[in-house]
């Protein structure tokens, strides 16, 4: 590049401070759901919902790391980065993070087959996790690595979490906490590696901006995941402004009418303000034990109805 670019070099110290300032502001350790988790305020059903849904995020990690690997021409980089995949998938000698997460599922009283089937993953959680893989897929190597820098806060968060679980959630067997312990060690190492890469390779102001933007997007994704988990616990009911016309299979609102299909009527009928979104889906499952995609269809229908104002779901 020409000499003019020398005046526009990136100060690594300044970039690192910016990335940390961003995490200070937007990392999901401050999300209300996490605050409640660590204060011991979550009910068992809320913790189970989180464990069940967060598993989908866990399954995306080795996939996005595979995408990152495929972006690098550097053998040394790949030799180091590939460890992240085995950390989660495991190998002949070690159980990986995914198995440890299923042990957490066992410990909180979930059926690990149900968790692994992903059939109860809430659509907002799925969207958030898929958005992470898409972000990495659509970014260059530098921005992809920058997106992983939330790891630099994960060690502290998981240490806090392991302690909070021991202190507040005594009903969870200690074997269930192995995931948190393993990541408390892995995350700082991964974060240091990622940060060193970003600071060494962000050479122009535009690079720095892309790194900051990718990390901001990642923070948004983690935040949205928890928002979606919270939504699963809200108790939907027909909106005050909505008139259900059962005979015609229609809901009328101040300025629109919504036609319901057969199962739509049934789902809406279960939204009486006493059942959570998850419980509505469970009741649909018990009525249709052998049908496919019952939960997913139910969640998607409820999301759509909420967007249209047909149901209200106060937190």
């Amino acid at each position: 590049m020409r000499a003019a670019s020398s005046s526009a070099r990136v100060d690594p110290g300044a970039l690192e401070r910016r990335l940390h300032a961003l995490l200070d502001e937007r990392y999901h350790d401050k999300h209300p759901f996490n605050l409640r988790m660590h204060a011991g305020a979550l009910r068992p059903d809320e913790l189970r919902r989180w464990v069940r849904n967060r598993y989908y995020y866990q399954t995306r990690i080795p996939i996005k790391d595979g995408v990152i690997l495929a972006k690098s021409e550097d053998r040394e980089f790949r030799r180091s980065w590939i460890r992240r995949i085995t950390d989660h998938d495991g190998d002949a000698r070690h159980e990986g993070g995914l198995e440890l997460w299923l042990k957490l599922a066992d410990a909180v009283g979930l059926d690990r087959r149900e968790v692994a089937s992903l059939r109860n993953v809430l659509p907002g959680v799925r969207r958030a996790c898929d958005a992470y893989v898409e972000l990495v897929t659509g970014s260059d190597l530098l921005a992809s690595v920058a997106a992983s820098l939330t790891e630099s806060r994960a060690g502290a968060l998981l240490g806090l979490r392991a302690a909070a679980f021991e202190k507040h959630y005594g009903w969870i067997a200690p074997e269930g906490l192995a995931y948190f312990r393993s990541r408390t060690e892995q995350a700082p190492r991964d974060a240091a590696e990622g940060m060193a890469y970003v600071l060494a390779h962000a050479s122009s102001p535009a690079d720095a901006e892309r790194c900051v933007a990718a990390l901001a997007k990642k923070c948004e994704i983690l935040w949205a995941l928890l928002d979606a988990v919270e939504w699963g616990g809200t108790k939907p009911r027909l909106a005050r402004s909505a008139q259900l016309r059962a005979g015609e299979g229609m809901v009328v609102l101040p300025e629109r009418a919504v036609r319901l299909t057969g199962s739509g009527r049934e789902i809406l009928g279960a939204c009486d303000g006493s059942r959570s979104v998850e419980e509505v889906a469970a009741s649909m499952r018990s009525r249709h034990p052998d049908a496919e995609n019952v939960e997913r269809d139910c969640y998607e229908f409820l999301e759509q109805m909420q967007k249209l104002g047909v149901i209200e779901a106060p937190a």
Partner: protein
Amino acid sequence: MSAAAAEAAPRPLNLVAELTYRCPLRCPYCSNPTNLRDFPDALSSADWARVFREAAALGCVHVGLTGGEPSARRDLPEIVAAAANADLYSHLVTAAMPLSSAGLAQLKERGLRSVQISVQDAEPGSSDEIAGAVSFARKCELARTAKQLALPLTLNVVLHRRNLGRVREIIRLARELGADRLELANAQYHGWALANRAALLPSRAQIEDAARVVAAESRSAAKPEILFVLPDYFRDRPKPCMGGWARTHIVVAPDGRALPCHNAAQLPLEFWNVREKSLAACWEESPGMRAFRGEAWMREPCRSCPERVRDFGGCRCQAFALTGHAANADPACSLSPDHARITASHQEPARAELRYRERTA
């Protein structure tokens, strides 16, 4: 599919009951016809009750009680009760004059389900100036009453050059008033608004700025739900006017004519009157309703256009007003040979003064 089958009358969902064209406001973009004096209030509350029953039998589930100003009719409580008796979801569209808070409470008792209140701007002086009447304070008061009565509340603001710069303040006003829904309705250039186009048409930059504000504000809070549709004058494609001609909406004008939209009486078509025929006959068989139902009427470029199923060729009234032929493609479409009639308007010299509609109540 045969043409006859394609033109079979679909089931309407929404009855728009234009109870009167009288109104204490004089907005220069009023959607009523410019010859509104030719539309007397010809239907009694008993006539409206019959129209409501017939509409429900046809399949309508919703009635918008509008005008003009519907509360200019003293028998509005009976009309609201008739809508409830016909099992229609009733939605009142009002300028908040002369309707009082006590009057709104009475309408709710009679079965009113929801209310839309118009405001002309976020700034009282400007709002009153555009309305051509001192009205802003009353509107805010009635909006608060609606909330106290637990009536779902929509705030409607018509946007144009003079108030687009205050979209943020308008959204703040809607939040203060507790509106469930905010309709930011870009002026549509028919009738009165077409006569005032040179004084109302905004710049593209104004529209884009407003769209950005709306997008940011919509993300920041769930309420109110904000409806902002880019105006057809600034897009390359027409809007799917009324969801298609005589497909889902029946408008009954104050004189009793059953129309497919607010402006259709301006077209050289024969529409039937509910005083002489049943609403079902007016809807299914009147030559005017049948004229542009389906696709058989379409000319090129609409006839072979894959987008015709989405926009139905756009607005017949706009095609008529700007090209002289209602069956032409809506000139808002860039594929229309008459598209320059839209784009040229962006070069028109701006006019400062407004042409108000006459005072009628």
